[in-house]
């Protein structure tokens, strides 16, 4: 039971972080389908930091540094989306898809290159982080508290405050609803959209490192992040692009995802005799059902996905 709660919370943290990233990007008017790739790159940045940082650094600074590198790589990678989608008016769906494929391919190539350089016989794409992982976890009895849970709550509060209570947040949302109107009152739409995509890159990168630290202590980069970027988008849609509702939606999705890791611990669930495959599918099935129920009255930002063209009315 405790394990289920632990996994629910950690997966919900990942989904909240990434969905908030998507939320910022879409409020500025850019659909970020590349979140999956951004997560992989963020995870790569963090994992490499864990590999090379000396283990002696105090835990607090260690965590900060790992997060810093994950965010840095995430932001840099999201710039690829920003430049194509905002400045060159490219199709956001294509570029997002390209980023997803590029993320996994590039991460695999990079990790393999590093592994092979250190040991010519090692052609795997695995990075291990057994010792560093311990720094992220605080044991409370048998419950493993992960610092990312706290970080997520802080970021959630910040995200809500910035979006609704600051000039920047309101301007950002204006750019996603009606960019021409925003431009007419002197808001630089392109700059705002860049800001939106960069924030989503930062949060996506953070979510990526959080995801690979969730359960295991090594990561094989060929696998990417198993559709979590897209689950996060489903969470965002279900949360109607609002931070608080996103967090609740993430808890629900996190619960179903956690169930597939821990269902065998529950007597009544194993007694049902359902194959384990069913529990693996569950989060995805639930997300389709949820989308079917909520997409009709979409609260999506009106101008999302449309490149901003000054000449258009």
């Amino acid at each position, binding site marked *: 039971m405790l394990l289920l709660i632990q996994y629910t919370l950690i997966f919900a943290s990942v989904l909240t972080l990434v969905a908030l990233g998507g939320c910022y990007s879409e409020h500025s008017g850019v659909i970020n*389908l590349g979140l999956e790739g951004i997560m992989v790159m963020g995870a790569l940045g963090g994992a490499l930091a864990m590999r090379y940082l000396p283990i002696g650094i105090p835990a607090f600074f260690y965590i900060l540094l790992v997060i810093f590198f994950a965010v840095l790589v995430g932001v840099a990678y999201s710039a*690829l989306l920003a430049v*194509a*989608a905002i400045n*060159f*008016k*490219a*199709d956001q*769906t*294509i*570029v997002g*898809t*390209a*980023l997803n*494929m*590029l993320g*996994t*391919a*590039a991460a*695999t*190539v990079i990790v*393999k*290159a590093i592994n*092979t*350089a250190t040991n*010519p016989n090692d*052609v795997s*794409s695995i990075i291990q982080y057994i010792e560093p992982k311990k720094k992220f976890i605080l044991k409370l009895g048998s419950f493993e508290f992960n610092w990312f849970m706290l970080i997520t709550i802080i970021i959630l509060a910040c995200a809500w405050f910035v979006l609704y209570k600051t000039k920047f947040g309101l301007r950002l949302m204006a750019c996603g609803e009606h960019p021409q109107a925003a431009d007419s009152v002197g808001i630089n739409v392109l700059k705002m959209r860049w800001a939106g995509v960069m924030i989503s890159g930062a949060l996506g990168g953070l979510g990526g490192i959080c995801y690979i630290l969730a359960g295991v202590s090594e990561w094989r980069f*060929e*696998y*990417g992040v*198993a*559709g979590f970027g*897209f689950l996060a*988008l*489903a969470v965002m*849609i279900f949360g109607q692009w609002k931070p608080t509702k996103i967090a609740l939606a993430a808890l629900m999705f996190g619960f179903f995802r956690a169930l597939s890791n821990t269902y065998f611990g529950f007597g009544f669930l194993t007694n049902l005799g359902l*194959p384990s*495959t069913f529990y*693996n*599918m569950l989060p*995805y*099935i639930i*997300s*389709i059902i949820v*989308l*079917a*129920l909520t*997409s*009709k009255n*979409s609260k999506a930002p009106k101008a999302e996905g449309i490149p901003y063209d000054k000449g258009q009315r």
Partner: protein
Amino acid sequence: MSKEKENIFKRPGVQSFISSLVCIILGLLIAFIVLLIINPAGAFGSIMNVIKNFFWFKNPASRLKYFGETLAKTVPLLMCALAVLFSYKVGLFNIGTPGQYCAGICAALYASLTWHWGWFPCLLFAMVAGALLASIVGVLKAYLNVNEVISGIMLNWICLYFTNATLTPVKNPTGKDTLTIASVNKGGIIPSLGLDKIFNDKYVTIAIPVAILVAVAIWIILEKTKFGYELRATGLNKNAAKYCGMMEKRNIIVTLVISGALAGMGAGCYYLTDFEQWAVTSSTVPAMGFNGIAATFLGGLNPIGTIFSSYFITHITAGGAFVDLTKYSSQITDLISALIIYLCGFVLFLKSFMNSIIRKRELKKSGQYENFKQDGRKN
């Protein structure tokens, strides 16, 4: 004379070709730089091996054999690319293609290995499976306004787990792959009609000419029939199509059903040759569907162009096996195709850039350039 030349560059087909070429060259160049960074010593040789693929062999007979195998591998990619293309023309981005391809594999192999069906019913069954899966996306999109990209991705994962579970009973007891069709059901293999003799490779079957015929058929349907026109009209403006009396909801569903059937057929055409078996421990959907997206855009969104772009992508993917594996990883070719898709995002910009150069030149020639510049300033 020079006017004639300018007209050539104005033609959309030529512009698409140039854009695709630019994407390929830039993609290869960036990959080359990546190889240089990893290890400068063998970078040039490795990138050349990727481009050469089967020309790497000295012996003409081996070359022919591996050319045949590259063609056989092109078939599923071409079908997936056509699936993506068909839906994209109707304004739908069918990223569920990998899942539909996976459903096709599941249906074809299960029917062949457990029920011992002939190859043709197996192929039809694969098409039905792909179409059924895609129809879910279509119904959700048409009636409930669910974003087809997200529902497509979710169904990809669902289908992957389903396929693994379904094919586990027919797997080889000693390994993780499914049984070969030849060992259980000899009639389940797609016939070659002598093509295997020409290439001296048993995997070269009639699937290759069939796939090319399908590409031509798709081109005819989209460009030359009323049905295709209606579909494209729905893609350009859903509301206008509805206003003209077209059934836009039906069109969306029909499009995805056809698209899914194409992906399923691709799976059947490949797995029913026994070329490859399904590993029931697979943890990702087959890359074929995603590479299909690359082939679609590289082919300039034209079914005929897609034949060549699919071949090109298969060619370099197969060539990835010839990089110096002690220094680099074969995923470098995944990197190239991902880069190509990314660069294809810039095609629209590239085309408008070409057009603006042509226009400027024409205006300069007719002496109206000054007026044009002034007009531009006024706006």
